[in-house]
């Protein structure tokens, strides 16, 4: 049969065979539940925003006319049910444009005619690749980057990803140097670079770009006359400085930049926590791209039922202003709770100001600074500590030892339990390794103590348990949901 199928169908370029998804499988096989399965695996590998669903539910209760299926809204049913115009409902596009503006503090405006629908940001990213590049062309992507870009950008489009390596020495910020040298190297090997794609705020870093960095990125692409795709799907999750700066703001100031090169991807999956509704947006400053992406949106239109609902909800300015404040507030609270909890046990994270996750630094716990050790540690965390987190290697991180841990996809109690499990593991193992060390540190000000404590965090890898996990085969699962994680 495989010779009767396309290469796409019979290869595994979809990227799902990566160990990234083993964590998923472990969770699927044994999901945590506070009462039914308290010893199950806690899902901390899923970048979902569950923090504001109460606000949305309340809005829905107060606005039954927003649904075309309720008695209050049913008069619109037939008009909406037949609506499949790929321009999308005008009120939907207006509401999305307004929402995007408010999420940027009203500092920029977005044209309704440039808002193009897509099947989530997944669909938006793929569509932009189809518009901007031919098979064999390449896009630069700073590492570490969202694991599913390998599928979304490359699988059916045939384009290549050229990673731009970033390092922890400067908190993984992308430098002009790195961009220039990667670009040059690619050119020398005859690879045609069509553009640069960045996620701002970043997944998995949880950081948003400052003005200077953004300006230099825009200068870089303008200088080379290549495209810049900014995936801004975590825009509203920014809770600390630097405040979120969209590329839309930058080009307002940098008037000499060729706007035909600038494209934004947006979605309601992260900021609003509505991944199930599949609301993706392509926003391009290039008229030809808008037109083409719009035609391509036929392959992933937003359900009219959802368009109609979202149009009503996001036109409610009071609701929008309130939820934007709350998202930021609640993400901040979770972030602090989690990072402080980790600090107490001597684990630090990359300093972050956005996103639904943190990048945890477990380099000191590796047997050696290799990705094999990272994966070994990760398997222990999944199977012994029973939390699903994502190893940095799955995000193409250039340095082993970093792990992305999500904190917004569960209630506070579950997060606490997650922290407890990590604590038990870290301290328990430390205790078994170094009985004389008495530096369980729960005082933030005792930096010196913490530093020495961290030095002793290395796991005892002579244990049988570690060896078992290194040797164990990949976990199989009856199904492997590929989510925007």
């Amino acid at each position, binding site marked *: 049969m495989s010779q009767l199928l396309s290469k796409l169908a019979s290869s595994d370029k979809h990227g799902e065979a990566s160990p990234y998804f083993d964590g998923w499988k472990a969770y699927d096989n044994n999901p945590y539940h506070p009462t039914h399965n308290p010893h199950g695996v806690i899902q901390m590998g899923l970048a979902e925003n569950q923090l504001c669903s109460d606000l949305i539910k309340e809005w829905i209760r107060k606005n039954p006319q927003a649904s075309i299926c309720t008695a209050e809204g049913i008069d619109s049913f037939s008009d909406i*049910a037949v609506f499949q115009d790929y321009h999308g409902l005008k009120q939907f596009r207006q509401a999305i444009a307004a929402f995007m503006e408010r999420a940027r503090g009203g500092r920029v405006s977005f044209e309704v005619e440039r808002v193009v629908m897509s099947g989530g940001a997944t669909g938006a990213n793929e569509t932009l690749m189809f518009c901007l590049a031919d098979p064999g062309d390449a896009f630069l992507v700073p590492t570490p980057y969202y694991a599913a870009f390998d599928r979304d950008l490359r699988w059916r489009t045939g384009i290549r990803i050229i990673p731009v390596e970033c390092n922890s020495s400067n908190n993984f910020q992308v430098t002009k140097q790195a961009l220039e040298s990667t670009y040059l190297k690619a050119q020398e090997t005859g690879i045609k670079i069509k553009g640069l794609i960045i996620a701002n705020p970043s997944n998995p870093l949880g950081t948003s770009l400052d003005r200077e960095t953004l300006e230099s990125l825009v200068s870089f692409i303008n200088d080379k006359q290549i495209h810049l795709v900014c995936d801004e799907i975590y825009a509203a999750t920014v809770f600390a400085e630097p405040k979120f700066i969209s590329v839309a703001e930058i080009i307002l100031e940098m008037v000499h930049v060729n706007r035909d090169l600038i494209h934004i991807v947006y979605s309601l999956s992260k900021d609003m926590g509505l991944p199930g509704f599949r609301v993706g947006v392509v926003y391009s400053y290039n008229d030809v791209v808008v037109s083409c992406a719009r035609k391509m949106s036929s392959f992933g239109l937003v359900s009219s039922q959802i368009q109609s609902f979202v149009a009503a909800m996001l036109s409610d300015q009071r609701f929008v202003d309130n939820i934007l404040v709350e998202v930021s507030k609640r993400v901040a609270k979770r972030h602090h709770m989690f990072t402080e909890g980790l600090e107490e046990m001597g684990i630090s994270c990359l300093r972050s100001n956005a996103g639904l996750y943190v990048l945890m630094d477990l380099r000191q716990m590796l047997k050696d600074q290799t990705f094999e050790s990272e994966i070994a540690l990760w398997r222990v965390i999944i199977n012994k500590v029973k939390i699903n987190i994502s190893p940095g290697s799955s995000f193409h991180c250039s340095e082993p030892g970093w792990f992305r841990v999500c904190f917004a996809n569960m209630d506070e109690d579950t997060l606490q339990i997650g922290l407890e499990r990590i604590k038990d593991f870290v301290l328990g193992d430390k205790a078994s390794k170094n009985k004389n060390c008495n530096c369980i540190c729960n005082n933030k000000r005792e930096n010196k103590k913490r530093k020495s404590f961290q030095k002793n965090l290395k796991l005892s890898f002579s244990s049988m348990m570690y060896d078992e996990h290194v040797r164990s085969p990949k976990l199989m699962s009856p199904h492997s949901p590929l989510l925007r994680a």
Partner: protein
Amino acid sequence: MKQLSTKVTSNGHGQDSSYFLGWEEYEKNPYDEIKNPNGMIQMGLAENQLCFDLIESWLVKNPDAASLKRNGQSIFRELALFQDYHGMPEFKKAMAEFMEEIRGNRVTFDPKNIVLAAGSTSANETLMFCLAEPGDAFLLPTPYYPGFDRDLKWRTGAEIVPIHCSSSNGFQITESALQQAYQQAEKLDLKVKGVLVTNPSNPLGTALTRRELNLLVDFITSKNIHLISDEIYSGTMFGFEQFISVMDVLKDKKLENTEVSKRVHVVYSLSKDLGLPGFRVGAIYSNEEMIVSAATKMSSFGLVSSQTQYLLSALLSDKKFTSQYLEENQKRLKSRQRRLVSGLESAGITCLRSNAGLFCWVDMRHLLDTNTFEAELDLWKKIVYNVKLNISPGSSCHCTEPGWFRVCFANMSEDTLDLALKRLKTFVESTDCGRMISRSSHERLKSLRKKTVSNWVFRVSWTDRVPDER
């Protein structure tokens, strides 16, 4: 613009076709009974607007499903987060059972073999990505749905090679036409990966006969290629005959669970049968596990919204509703089709005898100045701009004979349909042909009727090698 991909700069999206241009003209000047009574009437849109009242009354009676509740409890959060590309199991089960019901429960569909997609637009494209390399070809009988040029070819790089069908036998697929198409592909150095048919056909409005289906299955067996059967109009069958699915044929030929059955795939959607194109519910059904697996992953690019899945799983699980709906849908479509056909007849225009679909395949060859596609386009422009009816010219459907037009009947009210027919009749009477009609209308109608009967008789006798099942 060199900076963009060739997909952008080519016109593989197919939108320069007259099919879409007619729509654009309609958008500029749409008919409204009160606000714009002289506007253009949209008859180029294959929508089913006849049964919304049934769905709306179901919604009123089922507030839980309508308001995202299960047993009175809100499941909003669950739905807001649900993005598993395997789809909701209860929804796929309901889809499978609905598809079985449409086929008289003669065949079974395993929910595990269903892959959800954002409409059949996405389903068809995804199947192409799974079955064809860029440059490979699929054979399609003409005339075919104009959107296939975009859906099957644009981003996939696949090619379409037509299987030429002609009015001489009611546009049925013949063995020689299949072989010719295959050879043509070989001549063009294209590797044929399969055949794609729409059953019931768009734009013909006819269901494939058992003879044609057997022929197709035999053909793909001998060539070791795939068969995609786009059955999105399966629930619009209103003729005396029963809808025969390719799945029926596999069963009757005892080919279930064989190698061949793994190369037969069905595409479905709720856009036509249920009249819900806005909700973007499409599906691929395949017996081949590798295809189900790959297509499932690809569905990430166009998942069905969770809210929609939940609502429709409740709707389709209500068997009392579905059986009442299918019966009523059939009745109303039949009555509409009759209204269109008799209205056209009184203007001296005949159609291909149809038993399904939301449109008729109308014969206006006698109104052409010359038997050419230029003349067809001239006639079409007159109808669009002067008569103000948007209908679809056969050339946009790759028909090999000029003079045929697809005219939709289920996307407007009865009054609007009557008005459209009146306008058309007035137009025809003003033409040379029409003047001929009014001068000797009785004679002409008589001979037209004879022609209609003889066409019908011809088709019946042609298919009569096996007992007539059309």
